[in-house]
């Protein structure tokens, strides 16, 4: 067996990019509110957003199955109204990897937001701008490097996710089999060429991303 099927490569990138986009639009507002406010509720949300980092992927996958599976209220609702199934579909893979990736985006963006001097925001307020406008014209432009580092980090996390994705979307060849799963699968089947190729690609991506993050963080410190 030495077939090379590049579908996992394509699927992985598609899933990781979609998951990163989702985590960006969900994670950035969360990061903003966590950086602005104080209080027990926000502390709780802060802890909650870090949970995916600490929990074993299988546990996370189990929760997602319970929450979104075909027997769950959400699963039943989606299936009966929109004929959408999440479990064992690429959509499930997107959700699983987004959940794994989002904490990195939130953490990095939150830190970057916190470093924006409060005086800049106050100055903008007194110059007649509202909070949303200030977010777009002051906070994001000043914090963009931290946000970009968060995006790249969450992208690699989404790309590399194995356990949670496997739990939620399984490993159906040519449907839900992403790269990390394909590597495992290829090794199991003794397809060394395929495994080596995928491992090489994953390593290459990881090195490039780490390089980008390092560059961004160095520039961020220099200001």
């Amino acid at each position: 067996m030495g077939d090379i099927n590049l579908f996992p490569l394509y699927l992985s990138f598609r899933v990781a990019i979609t998951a990163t986009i989702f985590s960006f639009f969900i994670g950035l507002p969360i990061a903003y509110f966590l950086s602005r406010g104080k209080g027990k509720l926000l502390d709780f949300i802060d802890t909650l957003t870090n949970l995916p980092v600490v929990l074993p992927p299988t546990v996370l996958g189990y929760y997602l199955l319970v929450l979104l599976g075909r027997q769950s209220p959400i699963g039943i609702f989606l299936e009966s109204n929109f004929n959408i199934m999440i479990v064992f579909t690429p959509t499930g893979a997107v959700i699983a990897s987004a959940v794994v990736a989002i904490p990195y985006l939130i953490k990095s963006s939150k830190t970057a937001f916190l470093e924006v001097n409060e005086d800049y925001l106050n100055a903008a307020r007194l110059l007649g701008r509202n909070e949303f406008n200030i977010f777009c014209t002051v906070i994001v432009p000043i914090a963009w490097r931290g946000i970009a580092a968060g995006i790249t980090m969450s992208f690699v996390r989404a790309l590399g996710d194995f356990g949670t994705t496997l739990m939620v979307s399984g490993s159906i060849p040519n449907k839900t089999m992403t790269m990390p799963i394909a590597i495992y699968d290829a090794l199991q089947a003794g397809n060394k060429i395929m495994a080596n190729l995928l491992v090489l690609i994953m390593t290459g991506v990881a090195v490039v991303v780490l390089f980008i993050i390092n560059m961004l963080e160095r520039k961020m410190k220099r200001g």
Partner: protein
Amino acid sequence: MLEVNFNKSLGHFTLNSSFKADKGVLGILGSSGCGKSMTLKCIAGLYKPDKGMIKLNDRVLYCSDFKINIPSRNRNIGYVFQNYALFPHLTVQKNIAYGVKHLEKNERLAKVGEMIERMQLKGLENNYPSQLSGGQQQRTALARTLIRQPELLLLDEPFSALDTHIKYLLEKELVSIIKDNFDGIVLLVTHNIEEAYRICDNIMVIDQGQNLQYGKKEEIIHSPANVSTARITGCKNFLDVTVLEELEHEVVLKAKDLVFKAEKRNIPYSRNMVAGVRAHHLRLSSTGDYGGSSFVCDIVEKIEGVFSTTVIVNCMGCTFQVEVAKAACPHLLGCGGKKIKLHIPPHQVFLMKRET
């Protein structure tokens, strides 16, 4: 006309602010953590007071009774921050234009151009704040604020982060820019009495969240109403005194074994009071005599400054700090233990209520 009357609690700290300000520069003087910055931030709407009222030129900005709290962006107040808070990602031109985005493009560009000209920032339009000198940063910050034609200008310790030599220049420049370009109410927050005295017309002294005294700057320096005001305005000598006798123009005071006189002023006198006299108003001399207000004293210690020497003397059980110009008194230098005379000018001695 700015009318302020509010209070705000922060943990154990309570800020009570109540004053009125008209056109001109009002200095808010106090040590750090006394609530002077908080006062400005409440007026600007960056913090919400607990209770009270803030009114600017017949416009109510905040009123707890009617639940009015106009957001900062609609208060039309200019604010210059300690480090100017210029947006680091925007050029000088874009920083100045930031507050007038609502104007139509041509009008906006014309206004910004005019402001750049007036603030002598020509040629620096495309520089970023990090590429500017301190003076250029200050002018950009003022341009950014004044272009909106605020009714009230708030200056929050604008010089406290600067070196002494540059501070002087910037202070002069700030005063002249404000005089030429702004005809409204200015509040300046500072912990430096010298700075407040040079820039302001009126001074308000704050300590621990309370307004202590508000008046003309000369009046505040000449007759502080209480010990805290005297201390914050730089007075070094305080004596617990007993008022022995009230004469027509003077009062006779006794502190330990020292009996001296103070000019009689229009304040209520009681038996036990505190007398204050500023270090630079006292005179030391080894030969001359100033009549009835000179006393023999011992030099305890000398602390040499750059331009003046602080001499600590003991005069019949009372300790005084005397500031002597270095050039004026060469004979005092290096004369430890020598008997000399201390002159306490009665018209410079002020009396205050004893605080319990």
